[in-house]
């Protein structure tokens, strides 16, 4: 009886990349504000990563509209209770923060760095929002499973944190910055995020009960249990915990977290529409 919205791969990619953008930014903001001078490598990678990602998010969102040239209609209107409406605004505002923070990440003046840290404390809130609101958007619809899950936003947010941190770690590795204290700290932060994500995922499934069947049984079950829970959470957490001496294992862990984050969005979005 119910009608599916036909949100498919571009929305899965948007949820995934938006989570990374938000997660990378708030991680950068925290590292920038409470970390040492050496942690500024993390902050700079986080800011510079979130900027292109949020730009891609905007393109994905606009291209997925039925009438893309009318995307501004969402900005001409505001509904404070409507995730789609606030979300459209937040993507735009967050984009502006990532731009300013990225530009300021190149400054060598301490007063400008101070300004960047202040700005990032506000931008961080939009980063958290972008990582989590997509789940709330799904959980406030009439669709089964989506509409039944009270923790979809919390789960997407934790996953945005873990994938954002994994993406930062991956880029640090690829650009030869995977040494020393900053690398160790991003690994530890990612470990905490994975633990939070596992906790939220367990509560998510527990609260849903039988309503979680679209992902826990049937066609998507193998991808969910094997791809997300196994390869995307348990394995990278073990690698992170016991392989911290070997940098290559940190790399594998980061890649697995990213793949798991994509699988999460994929099974959630596609399972009831497939």
């Amino acid at each position, binding site marked *: 009886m119910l009608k599916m919205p036909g949100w498919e791969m571009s929305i899965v990619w948007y949820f995934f990349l938006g989570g990374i953008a938000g997660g990378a930014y708030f991680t950068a903001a925290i590292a920038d504000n409470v970390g040492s*001078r050496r942690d500024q490598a993390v902050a700079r990678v986080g800011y510079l990563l979130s900027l292109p990602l949020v730009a891609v998010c905007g393109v994905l969102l606009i291209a997925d509209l039925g009438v893309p040239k009318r995307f501004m209609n969402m900005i001409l209107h505001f509904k404070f209770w409507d995730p*789609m409406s606030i979300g459209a605004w937040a993507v735009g505002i967050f984009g502006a923060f990532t731009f300013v923070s990225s530009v300021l990440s190149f400054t060598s003046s301490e007063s400008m760095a101070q300004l960047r840290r202040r700005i990032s404390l506000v931008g961080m809130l939009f980063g958290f929002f972008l990582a989590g609101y997509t789940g709330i958007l799904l959980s406030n619809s009439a669709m089964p499973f989506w509409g039944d899950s009270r923790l979809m936003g919390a789960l997407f947010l934790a996953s945005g944190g873990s994938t954002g941190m994994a993406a930062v770690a991956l880029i640090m590795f690829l650009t030869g910055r995977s040494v020393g204290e900053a690398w160790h700290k991003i690994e530890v932060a990612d470990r905490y995020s994975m633990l939070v994500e596992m906790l939220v995922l367990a509560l998510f499934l527990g609260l849903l009960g039988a309503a979680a069947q679209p992902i826990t049984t049937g066609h998507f079950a193998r991808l969910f249990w094997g791809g997300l829970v196994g390869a995307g959470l348990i394995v990278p957490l073990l690698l992170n915990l016991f392989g911290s001496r070997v940098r290559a294992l940190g790399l594998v862990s980061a890649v697995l977290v990213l793949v798991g984050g994509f699988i999460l969005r994929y099974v959630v979005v596609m399972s009831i529409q497939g």
Partner: protein
Amino acid sequence: MARTLAMFTDTSLCIGCRACQVACKQWNELGLEEPEWTGTYQNHAHFTDKTFRLVRFIEAPGAKPNGDLAWLLMSDVCKHCAQAGCLDACPTGAIYRTEYGTVNINQDVCNGCRYCVASCPFGVVSFNEQTGTAKKCTFCNDRIHNGLGPACAKACPTDSIQFGFRDELVAKANQRVEALKAMGFKDAQLYGADSNGFLGGLNAFFLLLAKPATYNLPENPQRPQRNVVVDSLFSIGSAILVGVGALLAFRERGKGGA
């Protein structure tokens, strides 16, 4: 606001002629679609972007007063909910409530995000690939603003679909339920007539001869946006946990850094 208008679909009077479905297609110039084999006379299986009125043909074992199989007919339509999920979901303001209480989609404003499709508890709103916009019954917005009833109600030969002021139709509907019960239709009931009931009442409400579930209607449909606050609080909790984790990882432990 003008006095609320409504459509009352009395399924006990429906003969399954589909004049409503055809009149709707013609007046609204909805165009042709491939027929679908549903296993019954029903066509199409669901509402589409080109089918706003749909006569459902339902075979329900044991639903007749004497326990026999009942062949139930129901001309289904957008419910024009008093608390409309589609309207609350629409981020562009394209979906609006008219002065008569009906819910309409402004086709010049809709940008095709499809959140309304996911937010309709009845599977009514449909996406049109050609226009790139969401489509549904307009309650014949052009007709009611020119003193005419909706095309479906006008075409109905048995008055199964009645159009009028909501309060008058509800009174009439209640009398009709009593009459049917007296005739032995013990499950005769109204669906969506109560403005204190689910979704604040439906401006297109129904008289059913069996339980809503028999007609594939939800027993107690809810506003899809009712959990925004709770879900947001849980997300804030998650944000605090993740944020504190990052804080613990990055903070300087008395090393005098930064």
